[in-house]
């Protein structure tokens, strides 16, 4: 490994050593970037990201065709990074990211071991993951006692530290982490009273609703929310109310639940402070950067992948996306920007967003578009069009907001496009 010093230069710096960062690093090396020219910077003392605390199984079904636990899945990538000799600095947090006048990016990071380091890099992959929406952002009225945690913080306490945050639990939000924690807390002997979800549908995967709630007889109240938290020092209970179509609580529907703990699982927010600081444009819907199909942001040489770009339900897709970013960075380092035409991709109707937001032409390969719907849709055709011309059409039996969808556009179909935009829409069947 090249020496670590206070001032360094590298071809490619990868910010974040979760599944996205690791897969991007491997792909970059496999596509020709010398391993010594790569540097992974990871805040935690271990590579693997949020997967390290996901000790349940269910990872890797798509990738490896087998069910791994989170740490097992992460270990496969971490091992490969080590074997390939790609250097990583652990317990090192990136503080700033800026573009320099010569186009290179300046990164400052800090660790106990090396103090404050400054790195000049030609290319960067952003792989900082996401964070959970906390109580403040949800603006739940009431007191401010102990016992209110995000589901992820509770998961860390239980799975990593071995401590119970509470014994009688109410969960707000039916995101996957909340569902998984409902099961986990139950297995640890806690009583999960209820899961309340604001929307008329769950934000989590169907398989998690079955395996984490139904199998344990934990009630899920859709179109319900917590309208008051009670308790002075420690939580003593919550009031839950039903909400109308506009998500406003309906007076008279209040129910009181005794509990000592409230877990929040109300969505994840891509962690884009550095991205914003660098002045890289973000998509207001995804909360992540605007990218092309190689996951390059609007700032040349800066790529993004994984939950920092848009929130994924399955890590398998994170890895696949990060490989695009890693390979994209390798190609960019070798050839610079080569595309001739940038085609914007537009979601329409109930489709909330599409990643990538642009496609560069001429396309060298097939392009896979990932999207999410904003409401439950039964039986519909997904259409991708350019100037009224259909490039893709495929029928889905059911589309759920909690599950990311994708379509693949053939390179040949893209080859015929000269201008305009791609639109992605649904057609009811």
């Amino acid at each position, binding site marked *: 490994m090249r020496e670590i010093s206070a001032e360094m230069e590298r071809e490619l710096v990868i910010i974040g050593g979760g599944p996205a960062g690791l897969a991007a690093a491997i792909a970059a090396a496999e596509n020709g970037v010398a391993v010594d020219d790569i540097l992974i910077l990871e805040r935690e003392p271990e590579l693997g990201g949020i997967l390290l605390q996901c000790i349940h199984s269910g990872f890797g079904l798509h990738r490896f065709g087998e069910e791994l636990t989170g740490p097992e899945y992460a270990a496969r990538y971490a091992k490969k990074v080590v074997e390939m000799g790609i250097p990583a600095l652990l317990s090192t*947090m990136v503080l700033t990211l800026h573009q320099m006048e010569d186009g290179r990016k300046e990164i400052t990071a800090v660790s106990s071991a090396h103090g404050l380091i400054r790195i000049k890099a030609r290319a960067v992959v952003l792989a900082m993951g996401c964070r*959970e929406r906390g109580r*403040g952002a949800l603006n739940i009225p009431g007191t401010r006692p102990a016992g209110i945690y995000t589901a992820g913080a509770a998961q860390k306490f239980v799975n990593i530290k071995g401590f119970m945050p509470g014994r009688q639990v109410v969960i707000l939000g039916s995101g996957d982490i909340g569902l998984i924690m409902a099961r986990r807390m139950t297995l640890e002997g806690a009583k999960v009273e209820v899961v309340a979800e604001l929307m008329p549908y769950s934000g989590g995967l169907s398989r998690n609703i079955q395996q984490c709630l139904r199998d344990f007889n934990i009630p899920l109240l859709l179109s319900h929310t917590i309208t008051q938290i009670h308790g002075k020092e420690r939580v003593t209970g919550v009031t839950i109310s039903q909400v109308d179509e506009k998500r406003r609580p309906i007076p008279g529907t209040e129910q009181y639940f005794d509990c000592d703990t409230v877990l929040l699982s109300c969505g994840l927010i891509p962690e884009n402070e550095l991205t914003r600081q660098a002045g890289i444009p973000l998509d207001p819907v995804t909360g992540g950067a605007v990218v092309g199909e190689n996951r390059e942001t609007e700032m040349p040489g800066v790529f993004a992948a994984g939950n920092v770009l848009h929130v994924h339900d399955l890590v398998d897709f994170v890895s696949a996306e990060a490989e695009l970013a890693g390979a994209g960075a390798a190609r960019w380092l070798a050839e610079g920007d080569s595309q001739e035409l940038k085609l914007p991709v537009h979601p329409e109707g109930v489709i909330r967003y599409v990643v990538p937001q642009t496609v560069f032409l001429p396309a060298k390969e097939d392009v896979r578009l990932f999207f999410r719907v904003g409401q439950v849709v039964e039986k519909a055709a997904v259409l991708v069009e350019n100037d009224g011309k259909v490039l893709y059409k495929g029928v889905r039996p059911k589309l759920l907001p909690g599950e990311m969808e994708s379509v693949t556009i053939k390179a040949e179909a893209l080859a015929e496009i000269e201008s305009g935009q791609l639109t992605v829409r649904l057609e009811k069947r």
Partner: protein
Amino acid sequence: MDVAVIGAGVVGALIARELSRYELDVCLLEKADDVAMGTSKANSAIIHAGFDCQPGSVMAKMNVRGNAMMDQLTRELSVPFKRNGSMVLAFNEEDVRTLETLLDRGVKNGVPGVRIVSGDQAREMEPNISGDAVAALVAPSGGIICPYELTIAAAGNAMDNGVRLHTGFEVTDAEFSDGVWTLTSAAGDRVQANYIVNAAGLFSDQVAALMGDDGYHVFPRRGEYLLLDRDQGKMVSHTIFQCPSAMGKGILVTPTVDGNLLLGPTSENREDREDTATTAEGLATVARLASKSVPSVNLRAVITSFTGLRSCSSGHDFIIEPSKKRPQLVEITGIESPGLSSAPAIAEYAVSLLKEMGLALHAKADFNPIRRPIPRFREMNIEQRRALIEEDARFGQIICRCETVTEGEIVRALHQNPPAHDLDGVKRRTRTGMGRCNGGFCTPQAVEIIARELGIPIEQVTKCGGESRLLVGKTKEGGLDA
């Protein structure tokens, strides 16, 4: 003891610090687990210019004097303070007349530089304020501060100069005999002192009563707030008020010293003196009225909400006086807004009263007015950061990523005067967990550091003392002690 001060809010803490200038045995008694747990924790954090107070009132005198004392005080204590200026908006003719009254009071109260400008001039100074504002009163001496930091710093500096702080000491009984007061806590601890200063805020009437003086009555007036993310912090640079009414200074929109945007407070009389819960209606009112001043404020950027309780008296003025009924006792009550702004002046005045009452004041030769602050890694440049990590590698370990707080800072907060005992104490001293993720990431690590530094099991770490334990026990197979 020569003097026991009851209540470690901003008033009590500054009185203790003022007393620590002299050769005296002083103690500061606080019922909560930490200082600044009452009204001084949750308020608008404005150092008011003083144009709102009735000329001739105690309030007016204390406010203008307190405001003028802030620069030196905050420099000595290393507390962030900024004279960002205050601006009161008028939306109609009646409001304009109110501004004229305020201007007149401001001039009489000796507020420097106070003036009225047109709506357009106001918008030139503050482009994001409402197009409906027809005029504004501007007071350049208005400022912003962090109220609990001021309290913590004052208590800490007092302790550095010999004052003893007893947290968890709720005065529940008091007796005067042979010229000495004996105060007893709920837990049965005793403190004896020649003089007592009652600075118990919302509970000052009850404390006065248990000392045998039932001449006071305090009633709480709730105020709810919304705090917005830093990306909204530059929406305005002045503190933007609406015209005041009998119930208070109206809903304001202000940057905070930490760069966030604060909206509030509501104003509502309630009987319960401990009810700091927020309500859906209250928060909706704040959102609605704040948008009237600054229409483009993004209400989706809320990161937290809270409630403060003003301690009001029927006379609507501060009461700072020797007890009329009991000896060797100074009563400080009715310290509603602008109590924070006035606190340094109240402290100075209270000590002068003690002197008049016979307390001998001999200046301490080694009094040190300067407080060594906890380093703020977040605010340092590269060279300063490098030097700090060189000195102690724990400043290279970031614990709170939203607010860039290091392990070194948390360790200091747990050991430096006044030491934090719990998670909220660490939070107030370092901003750990105060960012946009509300502590989702750093709470587990912060809890571990607290347990390690205090030498207690992890399960005994609390959020804010008492029964507020954060964890209830070990998992079936887990539970490594830190």
